[in-house]
C-alpha cells in the first residue's frame, strides 16, 4: 500500500516539498528561538496574507507579492524598533494586523472567491505543482548557503549583539539579512502549513531542540530532525487518516514539544 502511495506524482511532490521546507525551518528555528524572535515570525507570516491577496487582485503569482509584503513588514518592524520609540512587539502587532486587514480588502476588491484562500491560510501541500517545487528548492539552497556562510557571525549576534558590534561584526547588516531570510522561509513554508500555522514551524522545532540539546550544533541537528520528522510523518499520517496535512504536522510538533519538555529536567541534570 505504501508503494502505491509513493507512486502518486502529487504525493511525491508533496513529500519532496515537505522535506525541503521543514529542513530549512528546522535550521532557522534554532536561531529564531535563541534570538527570541518567535513573535516576529508570527508577524511576518501573517503580514504575508496582504501580499498573497494583492497577488490575487493583480493576477500575478502570489509568491512574489507575498515575499514583497513579508519583506516590507519585516524591514518596517526593524526600522520602527531601531529608529523610533515604538516597542518591537507593539510594532509587530500593528503591522501584521494592518496587512491582514489590507489582505481582506484586496480579496474583497478582487471578488476572487474561487481562489484557494483557504489553502493559503492553512496550507495545501498536496496541491503543489512542479514550478512551486522548484521555487522551494531554490529558496532552500539559497537560504542554507547564506546561513552556512555567516554561521559564526549569526551565532555571535544571537549570543551577544552589543559585543559582536564592538568586535567589528557587521551587526546591522546581519540583522536585516536574517529578517530577509525569515521572510523568504515564511513564504515557502506557507505551501506546507499555511499562513496561520507558519510560525509553528519557525518556533517549535527550535524549542524541542532546546529541550534536548546542550550544544548549539547539536541543537541545529535536533531542530532539523524534529522538523523533517514531523513534516514527513505528519504528511503520511494525514493522508492515511484523511486529516488536514498542515494541522497534522503542527500537532505532531506540538506533541513532540510537550513530550520533550517532560524529559528536559532529567536530561539537563547529569
Amino acid at each position: 500500500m505504501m508503494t502505491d502511495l509513493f507512486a502518486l506524482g502529487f504525493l511525491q511532490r508533496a513529500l519532496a516539498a515537505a522535506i525541503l521546507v521543514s529542513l530549512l525551518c528546522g535550521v532557522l528555528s534554532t536561531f529564531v528561538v535563541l534570538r527570541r524572535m518567535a513573535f516576529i515570525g508570527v508577524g511576518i507570516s501573517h503580514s504575508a496574507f496582504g501580499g498573497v491577496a494583492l497577488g490575487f487582485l493583480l493576477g500575478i503569482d502570489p509568491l512574489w507579492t507575498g515575499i514583497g509584503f513579508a519583506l516590507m513588514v519585516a524591514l518596517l518592524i526593524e526600522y520602527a524598533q531601531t529608529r523610533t520609540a515604538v516597542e518591537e512587539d507593539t510594532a509587530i502587532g500593528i503591522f501584521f494586523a494592518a496587512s491582514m486587514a489590507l489582505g481582506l480588502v484586496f480579496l474583497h476588491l478582487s471578488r476572487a472567491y474561487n481562489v484557494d484562500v483557504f489553502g493559503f491560510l492553512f496550507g495545501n501541500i498536496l496541491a503543489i505543482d512542479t514550478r512551486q517545487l522548484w521555487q522551494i528548492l531554490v529558496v532552500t539552497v539559497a537560504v542554507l548557503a547564506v546561513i552556512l556562510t555567516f554561521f559564526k557571525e549569526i551565532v555571535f549576534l544571537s549570543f551577544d549583539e552589543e559585543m559582536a558590534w564592538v568586535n567589528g561584526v557587521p551587526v546591522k547588516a546581519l540583522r536585516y539579512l536574517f529578517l530577509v531570510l525569515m521572510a523568504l522561509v515564511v513564504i515557502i513554508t506557507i505551501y506546507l502549513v499555511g499562513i496561520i500555522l507558519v510560525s509553528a514551524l519557525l518556533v517549535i522545532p527550535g524549542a524541542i531542540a532546546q529541550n534536548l540539546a546542550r550544544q548549539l550544533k547539536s541543537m541545529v541537528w535536533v531542530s532539523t530532525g524534529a522538523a523533517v520528522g514531523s513534516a514527513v510523518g505528519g504528511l503520511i499520517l494525514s493522508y492515511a487518516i484523511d486529516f488536514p496535512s498542515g494541522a497534522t504536522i503542527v500537532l505532531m510538533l506540538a506533541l513532540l514539544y510537550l513530550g520533550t519538555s517532560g524529559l528536559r529536567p532529567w536530561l539537563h541534570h547529569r
Partner: protein
Amino acid sequence: MKAPEIGETAIKLEGVWVNFNGAVILEDVNLSIEAGRYVGILGPNGAGKSTLLKVILGLIRPQRGRVQVLGQSPEKLRQHGSAVGYLPQRPLGNPRFPVTVADVVLMGRYGRIGLFKRPRREDRELVRRRLEDLSISHLANRLIGDLSGGEQQRVFIARALCVDPRILILDEPTVSLDACAQDDIFELVHTLREKLNLTVLIVSHDIGAVARHMDDVVCINRRIHVHQRPPIGRLSLESTFGCAVEYLFHGEIPHRVVKTHDD
C-alpha cells in the same frame, strides 16, 4: 602587539555631549587617558558611567564633540576588528544559550578572523592561553550558563582579551560578586594589565577597591572630575554623588561609602 609608549594618549574626548530623550547624560566631557594607565570610573547611578564607556566604544555617537581612541575614531577602529576589549555590564543575556566556555571565548576572535573565514589553529591556541591566564582552563567544556557568577566574569574577561586588545574596558565587573570574588577580579585585572601592556578602564561602585588599585580616578556625574592620584577627598566624592558621604575605615583605606540623604 605594540607596547604602549609612555605618554602616548590612548583615549581622548574633547567637548563630548550626549543627550538621550531630551536629557543631558554627558555634559562637555573632556578626558585624556594615557596609555598604560589603570583608570577607575566612579559615580552614582544614572551618572553616565556606562554612557561614557559606550561613547569610547563607539556604541553611542555623541551629539557634539570628538572621540579618539588610539588616534582613530571608534567607528574606524572597530572596522579593523577593534583594539578594545570590552566586558559589558550584563554579558549573558540568555543563560540557556547552548555554548561552552571555549565557544564563548573564541567569539572574541570573530571580529579579527573576519567574514567568510573559519577559526584557525592560532585562534584556538590563543583561546587556550587566555583560559590559562584567567585560571579557567578546567571549565573549557562546561556550558556558560552552568557556571557561577565569578566564573562567568572570568570567561567574559577572557573573551575580551581574545581580541588582542590594547585597551580593556570593564563595566561593573564585580557588581554581582561576593567580596572575595570581587577582590580576585581586581587582582586579576591588575596582573593582566602588566602582562599584556593594557590600558584599563573600570567602572565600579567599590570606592575602596578603586582607591587601592587604580592610578587615576574619574568621578562622573554628567560632568567629570579627574583625580590623578588617590586618596580621593571627601569633598570631591560628595560633589560627585550629590549627597553626604561617610567613610568607614578599616585600616588606612576607606572601605565603604554610606549615603545619608538630608531630604
